[in-house]
């Protein structure tokens, strides 16, 4: 019965669909192959002493370390702490950044005045400001989140504000003919038509938030993946450093995928 509802495709089309699937499979296969080869050569060259496991660790050592960390119950605590901080930093960065962008859009004069300051803030290595931040908000989690924020905030402000400025003037004109207030223009045109810009800012932000949290954890932390990296470096535990980096990569990728899926949700009207 159900079969009757299926659209019948020509043979050519089925070949085409098969080719598409094949290609997709090949891509995923190659991606996995690269991963496997990468870890395999890492292990082998380390065993053959071509590379120095003291410096770059080696997969089996990392797995051993992973098991150890898991057994004493710390693994998930560190991962959780870092993810938690990253998510907070990310959400706050996006929110506050968008609010600032709205403010700059609203007061053009202000945006002109602040432009060079934004440029400078953007170019400043925030890590240099770490001590100042710690001095202000103490050395707890807030400091980490603020450092993460600093790293993503300015980029968000600049790119979202640029997005706002690119909104089609004529759409704004249309709303003006309806007698819309400035706030209504913001709500009905500027914000919704900037959703794509905001989402691409989000995608950049995810990455920056991770970097920010890790840098923050370098400066002040007793737990989290960044702490493990610093601490591992201090006690020459490269297994710890490398394992943390790899866990970090996986977490960052998962979070990126989640944000990218937002795109499908909010930009449904595009397809």
């Amino acid at each position, binding site marked *: 019965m159900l079969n009757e509802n299926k659209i019948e495709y020509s043979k050519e089309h089925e070949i085409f669909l098969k080719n598409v699937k094949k290609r997709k499979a090949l891509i995923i296969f190659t991606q996995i192959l690269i991963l496997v080869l990468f870890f395999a050569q890492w292990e082998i060259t380390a065993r053959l002493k071509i590379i120095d496991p003291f410096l770059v660790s080696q997969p089996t050592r990392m797995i051993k370390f992973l098991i150890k960390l898991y057994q004493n119950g710390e693994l998930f605590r560190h991962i959780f702490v870092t993810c938690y901080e990253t998510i907070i930093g990310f959400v706050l960065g996006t929110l506050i950044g968008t609010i600032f962008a709205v403010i700059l859009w609203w007061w053009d004069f202000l945006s002109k005045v602040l432009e060079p300051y934004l440029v400078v803030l953007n170019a400043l290595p925030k890590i240099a400001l770490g001590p100042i931040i710690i001095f202000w908000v103490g050395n707890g989690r807030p400091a980490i989140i603020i450092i993460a924020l600093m790293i993503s905030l300015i980029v968000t402000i600049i790119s979202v504000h640029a997005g706002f400025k690119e909104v089609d003037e004529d*759409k704004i004109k249309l709303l003006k*003919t309806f*007698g819309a207030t400035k706030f209504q223009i913001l709500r009905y045109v500027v914000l919704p*038509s900037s959703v794509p810009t905001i989402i691409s800012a989000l995608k950049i932000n995810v990455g920056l938030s991770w970097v920010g949290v890790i840098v923050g954890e370098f400066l002040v932390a007793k737990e989290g993946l960044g702490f493990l990296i610093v601490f591992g470096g201090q006690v020459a535990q490269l297994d710890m450093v490398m394992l943390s980096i790899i866990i970090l990569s996986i977490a960052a990728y998962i979070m990126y995928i989640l944000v990218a899926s937002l795109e499908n949700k909010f930009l449904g009207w595009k397809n």
Partner: protein
Amino acid sequence: MIKLRAKDISVIYHTLDGETEAIKNLNLDVKEGEFLCLVGPSGCGKSTFLNVIAGLVKPSSGKIFIDNEEITKPSNKIGYMFQRDYLFEWRTIYKNIVLGLEIQKRLNGDNLKMVEYMLQKYGLSSFKNYYPRQLSGGMRQRAALIRTLALNPDILLLDEPFAALDYQTRLAVSDDIYRIIKNEGKTVIMVTHDISEAVSLSDRVVVLSKRPARIKDILEIKFSIKDRTPIKVREAPEFKDYFNLIWKELDIHVE
């Protein structure tokens, strides 16, 4: 009865590169229920003039009166429709159509009933939950018109409303929209580049000069035909004469 009066309108645009005189001492009266077309060379100031009427551009001097009242900011009595439809891609057709009402906080039963009625009448009912990109150019343009009419304006300003459509669609849609507008008894000022379109739709055609826009000539368009429709009048004997007259007035030669 005079619905709209433009008195001594001049517009000068100032930019860092210099100043552009777009309109100079333009006087025009538009009668209630009249369909008026503006034609003129590219860049002469036609859109500027509509913007002045709509209260979007402040004239450097001169005044606009509607029903003998001066207006200085966008008025509820005016509906403006642009060359492109400017439907918001992220809203469904229905939500696009009620956008103006939503902004003016007039989303009440009467107005919504009116919207439903127009959707029905102009064949968009079954598409109201579609997104704009799922509709053809002609349907989008009709949706834009309903969005404008939903606010129930007395005066419609149309700035080359069909220019983005292809030839056949254009003929059909203009026929369509002409009927809609005449049904509702609106006063219309329309800008077009297409002389046949101007002749076939309007009661009067205003020919503007090169920039700065001044009125070069005003032609009353009258056909011997009964039950005038835009497509029908193209067959009328007077059509070609009006066409040629305007063609000459415009003094067209390309560069």
